[in-house]
């Protein structure tokens, strides 16, 4: 088979993995090798779906012994199969890298012969790259569930980042849909990698030249919308994963149907992109804004509001925190204002040391006043002439793209939320946060 054919097949089979970043490790070039790594990560292109292309993301092979129902590579699926020779793939990476197409390699694989054998073959590819080509660029390797811990360790000394995909947000779903995988087989390598990273840190403190184990940390991915778990369950799980396994990232991947399988959404189902987007926003709030999962959702409201981003949603439901005085509020509270991001919060902290800030200044500092104005005071005053009506507040808080998504009847045409959400024609009835908006506006 020609290399171009192989590349298309093995790229196509790998594209549903959402992890794309090349971030987390800074490494200069070497005297005789090729490549470096920048901790901020570099996207070299953006695909037609707007996703970043940073690494050559391929499977070593898409032959697979397993039969995970959500996966196009599952054993029972009738598709074309291919496999890279280790040397052939290594050469491809180097040639792409030189031409500045990529930052490195994201290598995953279907399981051939056995998890151990598969893992050994991946190690061989990485060995050629690191030792023969002296490649210093970025490598992300997938840990193969069920492979010998020693092999995973070996892989970890060659890779910058590793990931073990948790795949589905609950054990029950995992058993039903990925019968060859088990919670244990996923969490064990995750645990081992974490321990490995910690031990390696102490090692490096002792001997500077000690080889680095997974220096960019580990990540995982969850498939969204294939199984019935709620947003609350999902972000609670993410929170636990960040804490327990010190993960660098949890990725969310809206399920794209790969066939009509039992227990899975039908082939016509559109991937729940807005839901995925909300989960990423919430994830961001957990990692950088000091929110806890239980603040964002609870048993009564277990899914994110499609109309409002999770932060606005929190804000309109917690009028007791607002309005916030920009010239006095602590950093943690600034971060909770809709329209104020990490950067603008930092700039506010900085700028107010030398000046008393007014609304015009805030705009210059990058605050999205359109949203923030309802929640803030500058020197005890709110924006002059601001009309605070429920409709006005809600309209400003909803992003234009969401508003556009609603058809004339106020429903989502792709029906990704199951229910029709009527908003514009009868706005007071169907919004759960309606009462709180009232408190909020009353207060202001």
């Amino acid at each position, binding site marked *: 088979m020609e*290399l171009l054919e192989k590349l*298309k097949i093995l790229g196509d089979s790998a594209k549903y993995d959402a992890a794309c970043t090349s971030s987390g490790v800074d490494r200069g070039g070497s005297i005789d090798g090729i490549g470096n790594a920048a901790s901020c990560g570099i996207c070299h*292109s953006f695909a037609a779906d707007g996703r970043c292309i940073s690494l050559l993301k391929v499977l070593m092979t898409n032959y697979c012994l397993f039969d995970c129902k959500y996966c196009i590579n599952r054993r029972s699926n009738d598709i074309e199969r291919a496999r890279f020779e280790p040397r052939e793939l290594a050469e491809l990476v180097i*040639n792409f890298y030189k031409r500045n197409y990529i930052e490195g390699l994201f290598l995953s694989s279907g399981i051939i012969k056995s998890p151990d054998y598969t893992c050994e073959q991946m190690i061989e590819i990485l060995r050629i790259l690191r030792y023969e080509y002296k490649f210093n660029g970025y490598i992300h390797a997938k840990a193969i569930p069920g492979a010998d811990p020693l092999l995973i360790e070996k892989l970890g000394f060659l890779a910058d980042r590793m990931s073990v995909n948790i795949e589905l947000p609950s054990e029950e779903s995992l058993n039903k849909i990925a019968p060859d995988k088990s919670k244990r087989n996923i969490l064990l390598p995750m645990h081992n990698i974490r321990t490995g990273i910690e031990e390696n840190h102490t090692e490096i403190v002792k001997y500077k030249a000690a080889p680095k184990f997974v220096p960019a940390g580990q990540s995982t991915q969850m498939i969204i919308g294939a199984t019935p778990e709620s947003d609350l369950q999902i972000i609670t799980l993410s929170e636990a994963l960040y804490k327990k396994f010190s993960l660098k990232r949890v990725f969310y991947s809206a399920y794209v149907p790969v066939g009509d399988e039992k227990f899975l959404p039908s082939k016509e189902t559109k*991937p729940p992109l807005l839901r995925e987007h909300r989960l990423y926003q919430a994830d961001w709030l957990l990692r950088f804004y000091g929110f806890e999962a239980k603040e964002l959702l609870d048993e009564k409201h277990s899914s994110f509001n499609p109309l409002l981003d999770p932060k606005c949603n929190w804000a309109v439901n917690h009028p007791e925190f607002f309005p916030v005085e920009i010239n006095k509020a602590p950093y943690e509270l600034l971060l909770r204002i809709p329209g104020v991001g990490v950067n603008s919060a930092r700039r506010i902290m900085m*700028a107010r040391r030398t000046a008393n800030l007014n609304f015009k200044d805030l705009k210059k500092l990058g605050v999205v006043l359109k949203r923030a104005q309802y929640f803030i005071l500058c020197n005890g005053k709110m924006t002059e002439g601001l009309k605070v009506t429920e409709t006005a507040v809600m309209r400003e808080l909803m992003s234009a793209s969401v508003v556009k998504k609603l058809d004339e009847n106020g429903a989502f045409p792709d029906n990704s939320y199951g229910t029709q959400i009527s908003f514009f024609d009868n706005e007071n009835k169907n919004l759960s946060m309606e009462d709180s908006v009232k408190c909020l506006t009353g207060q202001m």
Partner: protein
Amino acid sequence: MSYGTNVTYRYDGSFNGLMTAVYKAISSKKMPENIISEEDSQTILFHEEVVVSDEEISSKMQKYIREKISFDALDNIRRCYFSNAKEKEMLILKYILLGKKYGRKVDTMLSVDTVITMFKVVKRFSNEANFYREFLRFTENEGVLSSVIEPENFVLPYIVYHYEQRIGNLDFLIYDKTHKVALIHKDKHSDIVFIDDFSLPEADDKERFYRELWKGYYNIIGIKERYNEKLRMNLMPKKYWKHMTEFEDMFGNNKENKKCLMG
């Protein structure tokens, strides 16, 4: 500093020249009407004064900025100088004057127009430099990697280090078509030189092979159900596409395909 003098300084366009002009303005305590470079306007203005670039004064000025304001301030000034911002010289002068008065605090004065404008210029500049770490593409020919870029700002000095780190063991050339300047890296040594014209060598078989592979990969990696043209354009502005391998067929850079299309 007194205002209302209508003298315009003309400098030679070099960084040293600009620093000399700034020094002159500060030491004479007179705010010039404008500072322009040789290229800015050919007609000689009535109240024009030519500033002769002086290396010693320039390094004195830079030392002053580093020590009295901050290291970051000097970096901002350099980036602004290399940018294509309108009237960047006066912006630099005003920024230095603020720095002279407030010291390193100047960069926290984010409600002052001069500081905000400076930050915006620096940000635009740095963004573009960043884009050329991402979207630049090399063609390999006889062991040399070459690339053509068309940046608005003069970003070459700011991407040298990156490519040295990345492929420093290989020989490479990056040609900035806008400013007609090339970065030439040969035998682990980089130079920036003026070159009137340069175009990429015709792709040989090996180069064609890898380009086809890359395009093949690029075209399958997007997920159909998620296509989002607007998002792609926001993240990768169309002006960069022209020199990117993945779009070569769209811009007719691919001579072979063009031949096919024509007949």
